[in-house]
């Protein structure tokens, strides 16, 4: 469903994504991990057609990223880390605008939006009367997730989707993406909340400095590297050594 071939992105002298190649089949939830600045968001932006690769390519649902970018975009949903929305639109105006970009008829879009607001426990009045700028962070995130799934895409990219969601919404969301994967959708899930990734994802890729470090099922990776948790494995692979000691040393600087 997703196939990366030597995907590379350079910003001037800096290589953000370095020769990344992997494949994700339909129905799989892939945890895409890495420390800050590792190249995760850049990779996701390339796979959603937002950034042009410097070299290499990718295909999504059989559509080539470079030659058929609009078809690729038609078949993916994306929840960006920023959670950006047009703040001066109401939630309904925003979602109807997104639906129109995918050529979903207004009546079908409205029905679909009602399904989502029922799932996310939002009131229709909130969606029609309040501008998005007045929404709480969690409510806004729900709207962004709805906007990503509104057109029923076969491939969905989530970049820190739980940011701002309360515990109930987060639990519901995790159940949602597992159900969507069972129904055949491909999910790429990028997050720093590693215990969620460990529980939800079928497979994990960790990148650092733009290069792939490991790729496999969580349990297999833990066993292979002798780590007891994904968090421990992550710090092992990405240079997070002596974190406890450094934290203790830094805390001492707060003493009067």
């Amino acid at each position: 469903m997703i196939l990366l071939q030597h995907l590379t992105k350079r910003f001037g002298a800096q290589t953000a994504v370095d020769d990344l190649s992997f494949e994700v089949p339909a129905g799989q939830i892939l945890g895409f991990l890495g420390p800050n600045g590792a190249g995760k968001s850049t990779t996701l932006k390339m796979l959603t057609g937002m950034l042009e690769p410097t070299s290499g390519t990718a295909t999504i649902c059989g559509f080539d990223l470079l030659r058929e970018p609009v078809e690729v975009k038609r078949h993916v949903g994306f929840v960006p880390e920023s959670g950006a929305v047009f703040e001066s639109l109401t939630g309904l105006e925003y979602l109807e605008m997104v639906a129109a970009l995918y050529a979903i008829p207004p009546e079908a879009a409205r029905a679909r939006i009602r399904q989502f607001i029922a799932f996310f426990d939002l009131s229709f009045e909130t969606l029609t009367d309040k501008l998005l700028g007045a929404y709480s962070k969690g409510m806004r995130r729900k709207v962004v997730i709805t906007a990503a799934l509104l057109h029923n895409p076969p491939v969905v990219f989530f970049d820190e989707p739980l940011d701002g969601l309360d515990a109930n919404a987060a639990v519901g969301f995790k159940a949602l993406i597992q159900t969507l994967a069972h129904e055949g959708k491909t999910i790429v899930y990028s997050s720093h909340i590693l215990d969620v990734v460990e529980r939800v994802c079928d497979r994990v890729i960790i990148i650092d400095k733009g290069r792939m470090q490991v790729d496999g099922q969580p349990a297999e990776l833990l066993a292979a590297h002798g780590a007891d948790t994904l968090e421990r494995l992550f710090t092992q692979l990405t240079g997070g050594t002596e974190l406890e000691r450094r934290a203790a040393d830094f805390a001492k600087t707060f003493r009067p």
Partner: protein
Amino acid sequence: MTPTAGQSSPPPPPNEEAGKQADSGPRSARVALSPERTLRRLFLTLFLRGRSSRGLQKDSAPKSVGSKLALTLVFYALFGLFALFFHGQPVFALSVYLHGMTFVFLGMFIAASAGEVLFNKEEADILLHRPVTPSALLRAKVGVLVEVSLWLAGAFNLGGFIVGVTARDGGWSFPFVHAASTSLEALFATGCVVLTYQVCLRWFGRERLEGLMTTTQVFVAIAAVLAGQLMPRMMGGVGGKVTLAASSWWVCLLPPAWFAGLDDALAGSGARGSWALAGWGVAATAMVLWLAFGTLARDYGAGLQSLGEAATRRPQRRARRRWIDVAVSVPPLRWWLRDSVSRAAFLLTAAYLMHDRDTKLRVYPGLAPMLVMPVLFLVQDHGQGDKGGFGGAFAGVFIGLIPVLGLTLVQYSQQWQAADLFRAAPIAGPAPLCHGARRAVLLLLTLPVLLIFGLIAWVVRGNASELALLLPGVIALPLFALLPNLGGRGVPLSLPTEEAKSTSRGLQMIGVMMVSGILSALASWAWSGSWFGWLLLIELIVASVVYVGLRASISTARWPPLE
């Protein structure tokens, strides 16, 4: 949402019809709005409501271009009544005036709006992964710019439509022809701005795009203002009756003359020269549009993408302190900025005035008219002896407008929500922040202008003693600079940029300009009546008393409510 509900009943896929529509795309255009129309409606809505919405209710949001711009359109229509002075003149002279002023207004509007409309950083995360092409985005945005431009142009030209009918060689066809030529002019002006961006992007690359965009917009706006101030005077130089004679060849170089030629060719004298100008105008517009939306449009997508990329700079061999940091650490700035909060606000405001594209685009084009008018007064006033004091005094008092406008404009920022930090800090009120911002505006904007005016006055008049005419303005300067901070207002970078579009700011400026005019007249009278020294003394005493009162008022002001 409850976990149970979420786990047991996630939303099903869209109904069959919607699913087909989503898959089939354009086939469903007859049912759903086309993506292009959707985008155009979106960008018009965003233009009307702004992109940020703290405290904005949907019910109070403007629903049409007219309601949003009502007061502005009324001003434009009233200003357009100056066309009545062209009653009985030839169509060409009237049209050059109308198109010249329209070109200025549109140039300023498009230059000020285009950066935000064409290259918005947040928009990339919302729209670039949707199935729309960069050219569709570009067309939708330009469509909105042209639509609003035509509203402004229409309001300004209302008076001209009537005057054109009664022009010496005019007639009933003038309003229709002029409407068409004005539409063409709006397309030309928009195309020029878009083309400038595309060329900058192609030639200079993404790393320098943002800085170039800022500089380009600032210069376009300043050029538009200069042209607006100078063109009527140049017209006056040829008696207000422009013909295509050898003495007025320069008219042919001005884009407004091309569109005036179109008016004259179809609804005026029909002179051969007018046909030539009209042909050139149509060809130039077609060329600009072809380049901007055809040949170079493919670069637009790359430009949008580049805004989301982190530009990398070559690392410097060793870290250098910025000159402004050095300046505040040594006297006299160190003495002037003893309070740490004021010093921080000074540095913050200075950084935004020097480096922030959005702030620069608001402040410098906004100040351009302030600089042009007094200079013209200084020059025109030259050679009138003792009776010629008004121009110098006017230039001096006009300097007072620089901090008023500058401080008013640095209140606005795209990062206005970050100003919540000021309220969270242990500061009783906004006074120290206001003081810091005021000093930054005085030092970085007002002082250079004062020096320039002084230099011009000295060079033009050739008499250093006449520099004293600037003193009434210089004495009033600290008072003017306090006005934006009264009541604890004017906190730097604390208001959303949409509020900067408020027309009430224009009304405030008119009030300040009226006070300036009165003070200038008084100074001119005192200069010619040889009691100028007494005026300065009285002004100094009054200004000192008022200054102390205003400072005390600002120092005790508390934070204004957020909403």
